[in-house]
C-alpha cells in the first residue's frame, strides 16, 4: 500500500521520483507564468497591479487546472478502496466541500488579521480563493479528501513519502509568503503594489514558486537522511 516499505532508501527509485516531481513542479511554475503572460496578450489594459483581481483569478484557475491534471496523470493520491461510481461522486462532492470550507477559513483568518470586514470583502475573498488553490487544492490532490491524513502530514514527523514532504514545503512556503507579503502594507511609499491585497497575493504566489523550486532540491539534497515510517 505504501511505496516505501523499507527504511533504507532505494536510491534509484528515489531519483526517479524526484525527477518526476521536479518536472511536474516545472510545469506548475510555467502554468503560473503563462497565467500572467497570456492575459497580458489577450486582454487589453491588463496589468498585475491595475487589474489585480483578473490576474489573481487567472493564476488561481491555471494552478487548479494544472494541479488536478498533473496529479491525476501521476496518480499520486492513494488508490481508492471502492471503485464504484457512487463512491467517486461522494469523494468529488467532499473535495469541493472542503475547498469551499477552506476558502471560508482563509477568509476568516485574513479578517482576523485585520482586513476590513465589509468594505473590501471581495478582495479578501479573492485572496482566500488564491490561497486555497495554492494550498488546500494540493492537499486534496495528494491526500484525497481525508482530514485524518491532512492532520498526520502537518504534524511533526508525519510525512510518509516524498510527496508528503513536498506538500509540506509548498504549503508552508505559500502561507509564509502571504504572511510576509503583509509587511509592506503600512509603509508610506504609496506604491501600487501596497494596495490590499496585491502584496499578499504576490507574496503567496512568490512563496508558492519558491516552494516548487525548493522542495525537490531539498529532498534531493537530503535523500540520504530522509526516512519514512511505514503506516
Amino acid at each position: 500500500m505504501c511505496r516505501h516499505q523499507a527504511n533504507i532508501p532505494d536510491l534509484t527509485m528515489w531519483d526517479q521520483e524526484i525527477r518526476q516531481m521536479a518536472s511536474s513542479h516545472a510545469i506548475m511554475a510555467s502554468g503560473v507564468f503563462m497565467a500572467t503572460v497570456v492575459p497580458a496578450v489577450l486582454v487589453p489594459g491588463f496589468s498585475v497591479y491595475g487589474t489585480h483581481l483578473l490576474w489573481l483569478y487567472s493564476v488561481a484557475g491555471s494552478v487548479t487546472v494544472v494541479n488536478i491534471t498533473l496529479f491525476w496523470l501521476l496518480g499520486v493520491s492513494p488508490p481508492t478502496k471502492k471503485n464504484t461510481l457512487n463512491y467517486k461522486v461522494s469523494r468529488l462532492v467532499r473535495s469541493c466541500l472542503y475547498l469551499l470550507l477552506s476558502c471560508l477559513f482563509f477568509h476568516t483568518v485574513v479578517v482576523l488579521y485585520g482586513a476590513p470586514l465589509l468594505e473590501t470583502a471581495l478582495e479578501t475573498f479573492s485572496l482566500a480563493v488564491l490561497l486555497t488553490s495554492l494550498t488546500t487544492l494540493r492537499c486534496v490532490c495528494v491526500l484525497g479528501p481525508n482530514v485524518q491524513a491532512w492532520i498526520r502530514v502537518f504534524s511533526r514527523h508525519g510525512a510518509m513519502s516524498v510527496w508528503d514532504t513536498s506538500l509540506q514545503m509548498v504549503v508552508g512556503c505559500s502561507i509564509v509568503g502571504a504572511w510576509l507579503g503583509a509587511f509592506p502594507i503600512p509603509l508610506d511609499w504609496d506604491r501600487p503594489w501596497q494596495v490590499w491585497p496585491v502584496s499578499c497575493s504576490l507574496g503567496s504566489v512568490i512563496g508558492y514558486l519558491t516552494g516548487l523550486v525548493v522542495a525537490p532540491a531539498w529532498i534531493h539534497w537530503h535523500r540520504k537522511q530522509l526516512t519514512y515510517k511505514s503506516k
Partner: protein
Amino acid sequence: MKVRSSVFASFCLILEVLGIGLFLRGFFPVPIKSSFTSKSQLSDLPTEPGFTGSSHNSSKLPEPLFKRVVIVLIDALREDFVFGPNGRNDMPYIRHLVERGSTHSFVAKARAPTVTMPRIKALTTGSIPGFIDVVMNLNSPAILEDNLIWQAKTAGKKMVFYGDDTWIKLFPKHFMEYDGTTSFFVSDYTEVDNNVTRHLDSTLKRDDWDILILHYLGLDHIGHISGPHSSLIQPKLLEMDDILKKIHGSLILKEAEGTLPYLLVLCGDHGMSETGSHGGSSEHEVNTPLVLISPAFKRKGGMEKPSTIEQVDLAPTLALGLGLPISQNSVGRFIQPVADEASLRDQLRFLHLNGHQLSCLLKDSMPAYEKEEGYEHFRVAEKSHGNWLKLMVEGNTSEVLTNMGKKVLKQYLEALRAMSAALSKQLGRYDMYSMVVGMVLVFQLLLLLLLAMPEALSSTSQVDLPVASALLSLPFYLLCLLLSSVHVLVCTSAESSCYFCSLSWGLVFGVVAISSALLCILVAMVAKRIPLMSKVSGKSPAHSGYGWSLSELDVLLLAGTAGHTLSLTASSFVEEEHQVWYFLLNTLCLAVFQDVCRKYFRESRANTRGIGHSEDEDQLLPIQDREATVSPLADFGVTDAGSEKWLALVTPPLTLACCRMLRSLNQTGVQWAHLPDLGHWLNSSEHKMVLSLIAAMSLVLIYFLVQRRCSWVSKIALALGLLGVFSYRAAVGNTMFPWQHGGRKLSKGTVEARFVYVFVLGILFTGSKDLLRSQVITADARLKSRGLWEIYSGVVLLVALLFRPHNLPVLCCCLLVQTLMAQFIWKKLHYDAAQTTIMHYWFGQAFFYFQGNSNSIATVDISVGFVGLESYVEAPAVFLTALSTYAGPLLWAAHLVCYLSSENRSSVAVGHGCYCLALLRSVPMAAYVVLVTVLRYHLFIWSVFSPKLMYESMHTLLTAAICLFFTTMEQKRSTSRS
C-alpha cells in the same frame, strides 16, 4: 558572586534606566525659557540708560525704520542659488540688486533639524525650539510663546499670508487674509506656487496691509524629486526672480515722499543637500541666503562676500525695525548694518533694547549669569551709553562725542555676540558625549544580560557574576584611570555645554567605575564561555544545538521579537507599530491553536490506533490520571476532560475574535487613524444608551472574572468599587442609569471617584496584609497567591475607574483572555516560564495599542489626571496618566506575577520570568537608542522618532519597577521556604 536571576535582572534594568536618563538628557537639551509667563509688552521696556526720570520720552521705542514689510520665504533656498556662480543666470534681478542696489545680503545659518516647522518657529520667535517644547505644548500645534507675529498683531498691524499652511496652524487667527497650500503632494511643484502667486497682483494693488508673508514650496519639492542640480531648478528660480521683481516694482511705485520706507526680505527656511533632501546639518542644508532690500540702505558698489549671521537674528531685527518689542525667548541679535543710516542715538537705543532682552533671558537660564563674559560687557556698555547720552543732552556735538558713541556701539555689539553665543550654546545641539556615555552603559548591560542567559534560565536560576575578581583586577583600575582621563580630555576640549561634564566629580567617577567594572565582568564572562562552547562543539559537531531544540512556537517568538526590533528602523513602522503587534499576536494565537490541535487530535489518533507514543506525546498525555487531583476547573463546575478539551480548543479562536473586535474599537496610528471606529460610534450622543449598557456589562463581567480568588472582604469592596465606577461615569455624563432620562446636572464626579479610590486602597491594603502574613507568620503559599491576586484586582479596579467607558471592553477582554489562556493553554500545554513571559509581553504590547494609544504624544489622555481631583495637582496627575496609559502592559505583567507564583509552579519560574521580561525590554531599548543617535538628523526625528523614544524610556522605567516587584515576590518565597 552568585545572585538570583531576578535580582540580577532588576539590577541590570535599574542601571539601564540610569543610562537612558543620561542619554535623554543629552538628546533633549533643556530649553531656555524666560521666567515671565506673559509676553513682552511695550510698557515693560527699559528706559534709555542714564535717565532716571520719565522725561525725554526715554522709555519709548525709537521711530520704526520701516512702514511695510514683504517677506518672501522660498522653501529650501540654498545660499549658492543666489550668491553662487549660477546666481547670475538663475536669479538675475536679485543678483543685480545684491551687487548694485540698496541692499544688505547675508548668509543666514539655520540650526538642525533643518525641517520647515521648527525653522518657521525660529524665524518668528528668534529662539531655537527643542523637542521638549513639543512635549510641553501637548496637543497644541499653535505657538504659545512670545513671537513676532503675535507682537505685530497686538500692535495692530494688518498681516496677509499666502503659502505653506504650517503657518496657519502655528498662528491661527493672526492673519487678516490667508490662503494655505499643503505640501502633501511632493510631486507637484507648479500648482503649489501658482496658488500663492495668484493672489499677488490684487494684494499688491491694495494698501490695507502692513506685513505680507509669502511662503513658496515649489523649490523644496523639486529638490525632493530630483536634487539641486536638476534642470527643473533654473526655471523655478527664474520664476521666483520674476515674482520678486514684480513685488519690488510695485513697492517702488507705492513709495511716497515723507513716509517711512518699505522693506523686502528674501530668505529661505533651510537649504538642501546634494541629494536634494534636508533635515541634517551639512553645509548646504544649513546655509540660506538673506537679502534685505529697502531704499533706507546705502547703494552697493559691487559684489561683496556676504557676511554670516544666524537665522534667528532676523526676528529681533524685524521687531525693532517695525517698532515692536523683541519676543522674550529670542536669542538672536540685531543686524546692525540695517540701522546704519539712522542716528547714532537710535542705533545705540536699538542695541540697548536687544541687549536688555538678552540679559533678562540670560538671568533666567543661567544661575551664574553674572560671571558670564557677555553680561559683564553689557553692564560696561550700558554705563558708557549713559555717560554718552548725558554728554549729548548737554549739547556736546564735538568729534569726541561721535568717537565715544562709536566705541559704545562696538562694546554693545561685542556684548550681544557673547550673550547670544552663551545662550545658543545650550540650545538645539545634541550633547553627543552624554549620549555616548548613556549608550555605552545600556549596551554593556544588554550584553551582560545576554551572556548570562544560559545560567539565568537554568534550573537553579542563579547567575555567577565574577564581581570580586573583576573589582580586584589590575585592568579595572587601569580602565578607571583611562576613562577618567578621557573624561577630562573631552570636557576641557568641548565647545558646547555638556551635561555629563557639568555633573559633580563623585557622580562621574561612579559612572566611570560602573562602566569599567561592567567591562571587566563582561570580559571575564566571555572568557568563561569560550572554552565551554568549544568543548560542546568539539564533542558533538553534529548536534551543535544540543539541548536547544526549538519548536515552531519558539521560532515564532524569537523571530517576532527580533523582527519587531528591526521594524523600528522605518518611520512608518514606528507610526504604525500597533499593526506589527496585532499581526504578531494573531500569528501567535494561530500557532498556539495549532499546538492545541496537535495535542488533542494527535492524542486521540494515537489512542484509537494504539501506536507507540514518542516521549513528548507521553508527556502531554491524558489529563485524567495526572491532573485530576488539582483540577483548576473545580470552581467552574467542570471536571470532565472532554469539555476541557473543547474549552482548550475554543480558547485561541475566542482570543482571536476578541483581538479583532478590540482592534476596531480604537483606530490608532497615522495612516488609518481617520477611519471611523467603534469608539467614535459609541461616544456619539445618540448611542449613549448602548454605551451605558456595554459599560455596565463589562463591569459585571470584570467582577466575575476577578472575584474568584479574592477573600470575601475584597469581593464586597470590589463590587462596591465597580458600582462606584459606573456612578462616577454617570455623574460625569458619559453613561446614564436606566431610571434617569437626561436633564441631570453634570458634576466633576469627585465624590464618586474618591469613593472608588477608598476601595482601591482598601483592596490593596488587604492584599499586602495577606502577603506580609504569608511571609512572616505562616509560610502559606495559598495565602500568598491570594494576596497577590488581591493586589492585582486592586489595580484592575483603579484601571476600570480611569479608562473611558468605551474602553471598558478592553479591560474586560484582557481579563477574559488572561483567565482562559492561563486555565487551558499555559498550564495544560506545559509552556515554560520563558515562553509564557514572551507571550505575556506580546499581549501587553498589543493591549497598549488596543486601548487607543499610539506612538505620537497626541494620544496621551491627560484628562485622566483630573479624576477625583478638584484641581490640577502634579504628582497624582502624572501618576494616574502614566498608569492609565500603560495599563495594558502593566496588567499583563501583574498577571504574569500571579500566574508564575501560583501554587503548583516550580520555584524558579518567577526568576525566569523576571529575567525574560528584563531582556525583552532591553533589546528594543538598546537598539532604539542607537537608532535614534544614527537618525538624529532624519526628517522625522521630531515628529516620529523622538516621541517613540519617550514612550520606550517610560516603558523601561515601568518594567524596572515591575522587576523589582518580581524580586520581592521571589524573596518572600525563598525566605518562607527556608
